[in-house]
């Protein structure tokens, strides 16, 4: 009997911390993320599942990520969910929901914004160089760089294909920085622009016809997928979701894509991405490097967007407020909101939001293109 009790006590997670002491640190990190998500409102829809996944996966002996047995023994719950990440199924489905929620009207009305969405991807490639020089492989460097794309599903899609061993750290960094956009961007924006530039008012956008909105997703899918076949899955699903919305005849599908379906996949993806962040995988020097490189990627991307916007402003004779350039990193719609807020501080009657939405959604396309390049080179 005593032996049974001892055996039982040795099977508890409390005892398990003897073998896995660092798991305590990870559980603490999970709690910090939950705090940030719930109390500070940082991307709660993703950080709550991710943090809970980190929490569960670091409970000793709970075996949440135990693989499915070769002879059919049941594996851990989160391992089954994780198959959707590993096989690249969940991120495109989330992109479909994103597409069903996105209005590309401001971009169609002002397609020059596409240039800003391209420029802001500069952070991806500078971070790529930094990662290479810091000892990462090409595949890992590409996955780290894409954090600068400010697009969670793209980052997870790329990392799951090129560097699954870094998935947890990259996902946590990507979503954390997306939540921190309102803190990271404003100083850079102010540093690079003059007061006069920040006060520029932009002309109102022209209305966009329904036909343009229907043709847009088809054209984008065609062009991007032909140039970069590995980007077809992400861009195709993003644009399919948008077509569901804009076609006006598939409202049922658009509704499900942006509600029940995206919510279900968000729960499964968040939990299982978090579950990759075990203490062994996460508490490494690599993770610290990734966190540092991630903020670099964001900063450089923001700067590149603002600088190109300044140049475009010069060329257009002062009609473009450079503050909308920072929105090119994507992080929809927070980056656009930041442009709006920074602009309004200088000039309370200035409404940049609609103008910033153009680069903002262009940034989503831009980072999918950049991901396609990386997959094309390193896949």
């Amino acid at each position, binding site marked *: 009997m005593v*032996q049974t009790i001892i055996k039982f006590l040795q099977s508890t997670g409390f005892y398990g911390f003897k073998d896995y002491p660092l798991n305590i640190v990870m559980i603490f990190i999970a709690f910090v993320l939950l705090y940030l998500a719930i109390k500070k409102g940082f991307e709660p*829809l993703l950080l709550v599942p991710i943090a809970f996944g980190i929490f569960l996966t670091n409970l000793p002996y709970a075996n949440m990520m135990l693989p499915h047995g070769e002879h059919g023994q049941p594996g851990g719950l989160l391992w089954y969910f994780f198959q959707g990440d590993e096989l690249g199924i969940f991120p495109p489905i989330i992109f479909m929901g994103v597409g069903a929620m996105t209005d590309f009207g401001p971009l169609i009305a002002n397609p020059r914004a596409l240039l800003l969405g391209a420029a802001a991807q500069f952070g991806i490639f500078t971070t790529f160089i930094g990662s290479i020089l810091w000892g990462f492989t090409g595949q890992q460097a590409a996955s780290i760089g894409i954090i600068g794309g400010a697009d969670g599903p793209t980052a997870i899609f790329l990392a799951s294909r090129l560097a699954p061993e870094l998935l947890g750290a990259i996902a946590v960094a990507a979503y954390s920085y997306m939540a921190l956009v309102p803190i990271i961007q404003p100083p850079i924006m102010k540093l690079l622009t003059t007061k006069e530039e920040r006060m520029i008012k932009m002309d109102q956008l022209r209305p966009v016809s329904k036909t343009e909105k229907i043709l847009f997703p088809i054209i984008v899918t065609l062009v991007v997928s032909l140039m970069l076949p590995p980007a077809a899955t992400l861009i195709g699903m993003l644009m399919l979701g948008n077509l569901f919305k804009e076609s006006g005849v598939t409202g049922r599908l658009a509704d499900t894509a*942006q509600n029940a379906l*995206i919510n279900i996949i*968000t729960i499964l993806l968040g939990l299982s991405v978090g579950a990759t962040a075990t203490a062994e995988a996460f508490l490494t020097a690599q993770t610290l490097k990734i966190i540092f490189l991630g903020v670099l990627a964001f900063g450089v991307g923001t700067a590149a967007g603002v600088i190109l916007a300044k140049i475009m402003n010069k060329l257009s004779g002062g009609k473009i407020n450079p503050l909308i350039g920072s929105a090119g990193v994507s992080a929809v719609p927070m980056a656009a909101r930041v442009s709006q807020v920074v602009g309004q501080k200088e000039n309370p009657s200035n409404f940049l939001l609609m103008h910033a939405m153009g680069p903002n959604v262009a940034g989503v396309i831009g980072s999918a293109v950049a991901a396609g390049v990386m997959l094309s080179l390193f896949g």
Partner: protein
Amino acid sequence: MDKLSLLDKFKDPNLIHNLSDGDKMLASLQVMFLGMTVTFVALCILWGLIIVMSKMLNKTEKEEKKVVEDSAIKPELALEKEDDEEELVAVITAAIAASLQTSTHNIIVRNITRVSDSTPVWGRMGRMEQMNNNY
């Protein structure tokens, strides 16, 4: 041998049928004892932790209220918002019920959706008209 090997046999679906009824009874009683003990211990620990939590929170809340009354506005607002929402639903429910002369007990209006910030990052896109409110 000793009790441990009894439990080991007990756990094995192939060996259990070799045990005598007395041995089975003994092993079962051990399982029951262990099971009820663990259940009670686990729920008692939770009981203790809930009490500790409640006490600590009460303390903290009082302190917080004194020291940083300003910073408390934000969460309070959040709470108020929720209350508002409930109030709103209540008012609408009442209105519809009144016009139908039926009791509000049987009606739930659950689809007057207030725009909250809990759309995912990608979800808020395209609903630009209310962005200013939130930032």
